[in-house]
């Protein structure tokens, strides 16, 4: 951001749409695995946001909820119903895990919309860990709950017998592509939106196009608000779908 301001001062157009995603050490120095970085800071703020949203608002436990408490109850009901509808009654046991994923992604996405902030969910390191956690958990769970019957997920018994081996290969490939698409979808959407906003912001340095650029920023920002929620929702509902496959592998 500082370099961008410099670029504007020197009169030339400078685009650094990806600089906002740089991982920087908070107190300087090299980045080791334990170094507190901007990513760590904004993850910590996500924790605070979750506490503020789910714990502080419900501290009164009022039967007639306040605004904050209604939001917490709404989030609870939203995810709970999703898990129950998609994964079935026996999926409700895993509701706290799915709620953890949802609350982290939604809080990180919205915190990332604050100007000058850092968006943790725009990093593949984060989304790959989330997606792999879901993938590994669901695969292990599928084998533990169903044994070898879990492999029936890849054997489409409703298809003609001749087609089944081909479909099985496709099913296996699609199964292993799941964590890839699951993680890239979230990080890609968030990163792309933020980068586009940055590009518009770069154009805003030219006086002639700056009104259009700012209107573009506003429009993109509105879209990003939508994307922030929808991507969290999509990530969560896909987790529920994968969980359903693990619990009830038959087609």
């Amino acid at each position, binding site marked *: 951001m500082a*370099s961008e301001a410099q670029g504007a001062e020197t009169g030339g*157009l*400078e*685009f*650094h749409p*990806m*600089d906002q*995603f*740089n*991982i920087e050490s908070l107190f300087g120095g090299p*980045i*080791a*695995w*334990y*170094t507190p*970085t901007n*990513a*760590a800071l904004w*993850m*910590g703020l*996500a*924790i605070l946001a*979750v*506490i503020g949203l*789910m*714990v502080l608002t*419900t501290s009164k*436990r*009022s*039967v007639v*909820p306040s605004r904050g*408490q209604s939001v*917490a*109850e709404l989030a*609870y*009901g939203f995810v709970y119903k999703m898990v129950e509808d998609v994964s079935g009654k026996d999926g409700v046991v895993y*509701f*706290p*895990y799915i*709620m*953890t*994923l949802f*609350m*982290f992604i939604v809080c990180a996405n919205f915190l990332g919309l604050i100007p000058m902030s850092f968006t*943790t969910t*725009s*990093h*593949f*390191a*984060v989304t790959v*860990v*989330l997606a792999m*956690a879901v993938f590994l958990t669901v695969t292990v769970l599928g084998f533990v709950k169903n044994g070898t019957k879990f492999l029936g997920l890849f054997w489409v018994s409703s298809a003609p017998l001749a087609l089944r081996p081909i479909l099985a290969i496709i099913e296996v490939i699609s199964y292993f592509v799941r964590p890839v698409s699951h993680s890239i979808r979230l*990080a890609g959407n968030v*990163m792309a939106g933020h980068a586009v906003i940055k590009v518009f912001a770069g154009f805003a340095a030219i006086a002639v196009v700056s009104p259009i650029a700012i209107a573009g920023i506003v429009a993109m920002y509105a879209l990003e608000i939508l994307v922030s929620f929808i991507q969290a929702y999509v990530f969560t509902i896909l987790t529920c779908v994968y969980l359903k496959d693990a619990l009830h592998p038959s087609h």
Partner: protein
Amino acid sequence: MATDTQSAAEASGPGMPQLDFSTWGNQIFWLVITLVVIYLILSRVALPRIASVLAERQGTITNDIAAAEDLKAKAQEAEAAYDKALIDARAEAGRIVAETKAGIQADLDKAIATADTKIAAKAAEGEKVIAEIRAGALDNVKVVAKDTAKEIVAAMGGKADAKSITAAVTARMKG
């Protein structure tokens, strides 16, 4: 644009900070901590609390509906009691009217009966007087007949004693 990305790439290593794997360990470390903390907060504090609040609200709503139904039943009971009281009151009023009517009728009957006996007594008295008068008239006829007979006998030139004339008249009148 190309030179810009180049300069950016020079400044921060690879073009996409996301693909700078040297920071992955750091991010994964903090992410795992974050997820564990959020999980503990949600599963230990927030979710049980919200679940209990929702359950409590459901209970309150159910209780309120039950109470409302109770009150409704009570209101219907009260209405039924009111209706019953109204019907009772009507029946009582009818009974009182009938009783009063019967009482008046009895009084009337009594009065009529009294009047009848009085009338009967008066009539008997009147009949007695008439009989007396009649008897009196018969005696007068006897006297007149005797006198007339005596006079007739005297006019015929006979001389009749009172005794025989009386006997003759009495015999005649009896016959």
